[in-house]
């Protein structure tokens, strides 16, 4: 039996149990043994491995419900092992990985393969999101029952939308049989066309084809209308515009079973980051206007947006060091999510407890998986965050196999310093302050 692990003198932030205050957390046999507010009389410290959590937050393990692990098929960009190692380094104890692998995760074999690789790696829980449609090509439904049985946690054709509204309707209906959540990549392809950045004056100045905000909003409207009609939950991935936030706010106001996520780059950056054809700022949906960024922050603040997910999208140098039109979409995000979210806390846009809801409580609830609380008896997935730690995000320190981040060389504040998965330390800051 492993030695008990004591996290001592930290700030416990556990919004699921309405706790935010100084205290200690004891882990034994992979489970949370006890949460102690105040003094430590009842614990015999000598028998424990002790981690000094002074000045640090003790929070339920962070969960990123939107990542791309690239395996099988594009192991030169990322593997389940390298991606979950990066997740642990970013403070995550669980990730949900999208099915746009090669082959797509539209069958039992791929789902099982991902789960096996995740178990071998041991850095994080991995929840495979399987395809909505066969080959994720939008023509016919994938075998939801088989996928659920193999361990799929949700369904999505992420990377592209389900363009056919009838197929999306049928997917919403049929997913009810297996209680699988649909995650929608909402994009009207006829409007986004072959655009490569947000439509507007910046794109015009650079001579780049624009992706209008309405390409996202029109499809979100369709997805919300379908979900409301069928009365089935839907989760909208990576929202980036003001109108998207408004649509979801209105739908929630009517009691629709909708949830939504955004990514740190949408509340941190704007289209100006494209600058002089910087392909590290190319993603889909694209970085939007200042007003859109503000609206995303408002949505995070008022509860319209439920989740911060990174859309971690690793790409190798040769995928990005090309003409802007030809560069791959997406950026890595696992190792920068905590500091970028903490910037919102410092700006008093969200509270620390709200940040933990967005990054742990809500993704667990939406995916229907364990985690998201510090309740005694729960699986000991714990993240220790140092909110004051200042560091420069340098390429050589990036744990992910790919380095495609617009935040390279940024000075960031706040960092996950210890990540604990089922009582075992999966990441420990190599350079403690």
């Amino acid at each position, binding site marked *: 039996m492993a030695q008990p692990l004591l996290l001592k003198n930290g700030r416990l932030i556990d919004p699921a149990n309405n706790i935010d205050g100084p205290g200690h957390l004891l882990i034994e046999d992979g489970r949370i043994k006890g949460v102690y507010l105040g003094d430590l009389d009842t614990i015999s410290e000598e028998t424990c491995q002790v981690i000094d959590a002074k000045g640090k937050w003790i929070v339920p393990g962070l969960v990123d419900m939107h990542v791309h692990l690239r395996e099988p098929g594009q192991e030169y960009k990322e593997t389940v092992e390298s991606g979950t190692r990066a997740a642990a380094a970013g403070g995550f104890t669980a990730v949900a990985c999208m099915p746009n692998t090669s082959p797509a995760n539209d069958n039992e074999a791929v789902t099982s393969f991902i789960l096996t690789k995740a178990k071998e790696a041991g850095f994080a829980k991995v929840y495979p999101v399987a395809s909505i449609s066969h080959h994720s090509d939008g023509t016919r439904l994938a075998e939801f029952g088989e996928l659920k049985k193999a361990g799929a946690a949700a369904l999505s054709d992420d990377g592209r939308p389900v363009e056919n509204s009838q197929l999306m309707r049928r997917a919403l209906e049929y997913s009810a049989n297996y209680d699988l959540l649909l995650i929608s990549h909402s994009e009207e392809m006829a409007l986004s066309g072959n655009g490569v950045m947000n439509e507007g*004056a910046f794109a*015009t*100045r650079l*001579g780049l084809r*624009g992706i209008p905000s309405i390409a996202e909003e029109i499809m979100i409207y369709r997805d919300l209308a379908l979900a409301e009609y069928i009365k089935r939950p839907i989760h909208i991935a990576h929202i980036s515009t003001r109108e998207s936030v408004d649509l979801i706010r209105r739908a929630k106001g009517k009691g629709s079973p909708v949830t939504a996520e955004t990514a740190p780059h949408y509340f941190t950056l704007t289209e100006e980051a494209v600058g*002089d054809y910087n392909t590290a700022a190319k993603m889909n949906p694209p970085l939007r206007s200042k007003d859109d960024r503000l609206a995303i922050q408002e949505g995070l603040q008022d509860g319209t947006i439920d989740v911060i997910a990174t859309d971690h999208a690793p790409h190798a140098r040769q995928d990005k060091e*090309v*003409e*802007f*039109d030809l560069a791959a979409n997406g950026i890595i995000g696992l190792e920068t999510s905590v500091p970028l979210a903490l910037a919102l806390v410092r700006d008093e846009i969200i509270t620390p407890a709200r940040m933990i809801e967005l990054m742990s409580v809500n993704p667990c609830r939406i995916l229907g998986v364990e985690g998201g609380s510090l309740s005694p008896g729960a699986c000991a997935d714990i993240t220790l965050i140092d909110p004051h730690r200042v560091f420069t995000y340098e390429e050589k320190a990036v744990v992910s196999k790919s380095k495609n981040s617009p935040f390279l060389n940024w000075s960031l504040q706040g960092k996950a310093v210890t990540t604990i998965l089922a009582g075992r330390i999966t990441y420990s800051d190599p350079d403690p302050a």
Partner: protein
Amino acid sequence: MEVAHKFSHKHILGLEQFSPDDIDFLLRSAASFKEISTRQIKKVPALRGRTVINLFFEPSTRTRLSFEVAAKRMSADTFNVSASTSSLKKGETLIDTARNLAAMNPDIIIIRHAHSGAPGLLAQHTNASIINAGDGTHEHPSQGLLDLLTVLENKGRLAGLKIAIIGDIAHSRVAHSNIIGFSKMGASVSVSGPATLLPMGIEQLGATVCASVDEAVTGADVIMALRIQTERQKDPLIPSLREYATFFGINRRLLALAKPDAIIMHPGPMNRGVELDSDLADGSHSVILDQVTNGVAIRMALLYAIMGGSEG
């Protein structure tokens, strides 16, 4: 050369990078180079021993030849690489092509490319000076400058003029460079055309968007018709060339709305009878062939300037 101006640009990526003084210097410099092309022996030794590579990934007759003529008249050694013979056809990336060319130590690489920003990418990965000969729908700086020179020669000034640019603004790198260039030099630029071909935010480059072609050309000193790119007709941007010619083509009625001494320009290649009535293209208001002549002079000035000619 009498012109005293410190020209400090290593690359020519777009008119956006230039100050009005830079543009003024290049126009005056080109005016003096123009004389060389009228001599019996059309050659000066200014760039002797310099290596210039023409790297064209898109078909071009006028621009490529114009750069080659300009470089040869200045005694540079010129080499042409065209897309059909290049390694890009074999899957090489632009950066690798650039690095391989750079390993041969050229002084200047002149690039035309279908993707906006490609010349800048080349500039980041080679030591040579890069001249953008047209990139995607971004800029075509040498064309912009030769248009400025043509107007300057005909009107004696640029400040205070009204320039009307009509047609496919969205896909025209020429329009972008002209809007930027004329605005910097104090002219006002009015644009008009089918609304599907007017890009969002074009006002922020300095253009005034007019709801009708009539409004754009009224009182204009210059009318510039842009090429309708027939290869783009897959996109449902205009219903037909016939309708375009009827409602947006420059004709005698529109010309009559402009100033009596207005000049007509077209960057070429022209679809006769579509953007511009055929007889207007050949008529007394047309300066289309002046544009071509000035193209050689402008490109001589650009080559000279980036090789440090401003100090001479």
